């Protein structure tokens, strides 16, 4: 399989570094909590590694039996999006339970307060 040209490597590296710094910047400004950032950082990190180490992508392509490195990238992208969507569903489920418990607690406590007042 052909190597990447310098042009391609630079472009891939710059793009993936931008992605990495974008996520880090969100965490730095506390717009993204650390606990929800790890999946994004992992992905951005992997993008950087693959940009500078094209042979790794080629090797993975052989391992999974894909025809071109592009297929491997596409597969990774789909898997990543699937993972992050499920990750969010898990978080939403947890939040739903917490909201439910808080609402129940609030309802019970305010009923108790009203009964005391009367």
């Amino acid at each position: 399989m052909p190597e990447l040209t310098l042009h391609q490597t630079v472009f891939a590296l710059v793009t993936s570094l931008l992605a990495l710094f974008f996520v880090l910047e969100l965490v730095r400004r506390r717009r993204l909590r650390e606990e929800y950032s790890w999946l994004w950082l992992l992905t951005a990190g992997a993008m950087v590694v693959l940009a500078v180490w094209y042979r790794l992508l080629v090797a993975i392509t052989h391992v999974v039996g894909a025809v071109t490195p592009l297929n491997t990238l596409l597969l990774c992208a789909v898997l990543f999006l699937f993972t992050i969507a499920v990750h969010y569903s898990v978080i939403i489920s947890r939040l739903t339970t917490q909201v439910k418990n808080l609402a129940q607690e609030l309802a019970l406590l305010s009923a108790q307060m009203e009964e005391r007042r009367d």
Partner: protein
Amino acid sequence: MKTLVLIPAFNEAARVGRVVAGVRAAVPDVTILVVDDGSSDETADIARAAGVRVVRLPFNLGAGVAAQTGYKLAIRESFDCVVQLDADGQHEPADIPLLLNVIAWGEADVAIGSRFLGGGAYRPGGLRRAGMELFRWLAWLLTGVRFSDVTSGFRAFSGDVVRFVATEWYPTDYADADVLITLRRAGFRLREVPVRMYPRAGGRSMHGGLRPIYYVFKMLLSVGLAPLRREPAVRKGA
């Protein structure tokens, strides 16, 4: 036996008053609690005016959550028994003592009011009937118990069961066949009691629109997973 009659209600201003009056007439010396599931009408005010205790959820959370709020109150105030019935008048309050007796005499830990054992007027038809048959059959397959009515919301729980259903696994949307299966698997004794049920007198059913499809999907999933789930920490006698 310190008994709580629990009536979860969502937008039932037109019917909850009559249900409360019926419960009073049937069991005069029990505590009655209406859990208002974030209604947009006067359900809570009417219940308060009727002189029963009211807990009002800040927003609509579903019938399962409303019922569980009542269970949590029952635990905090150490009630020995909770009887639950719908606020829409489908369940006959005069039959409450039938359920209570089962718990009081220790014949079972869960008493389920069945519309099919007795002489009630309510006979659902078509798809609803088919759905009930399906879950009846699944419940029988998974527990070995032949329930006649697995979608009944008219039931009584002993104190042990209340502590059990106040935990995190209790479903927040629909809670029918899967609850029976889980309770059975946790070692509780379930007993069906013939009760009267009536068709809804107006108002909107919980099962309108596309919701029956979701109901079947949810119930199949949770019934199917019930045997695979780790049993909750609180068990019978714990």
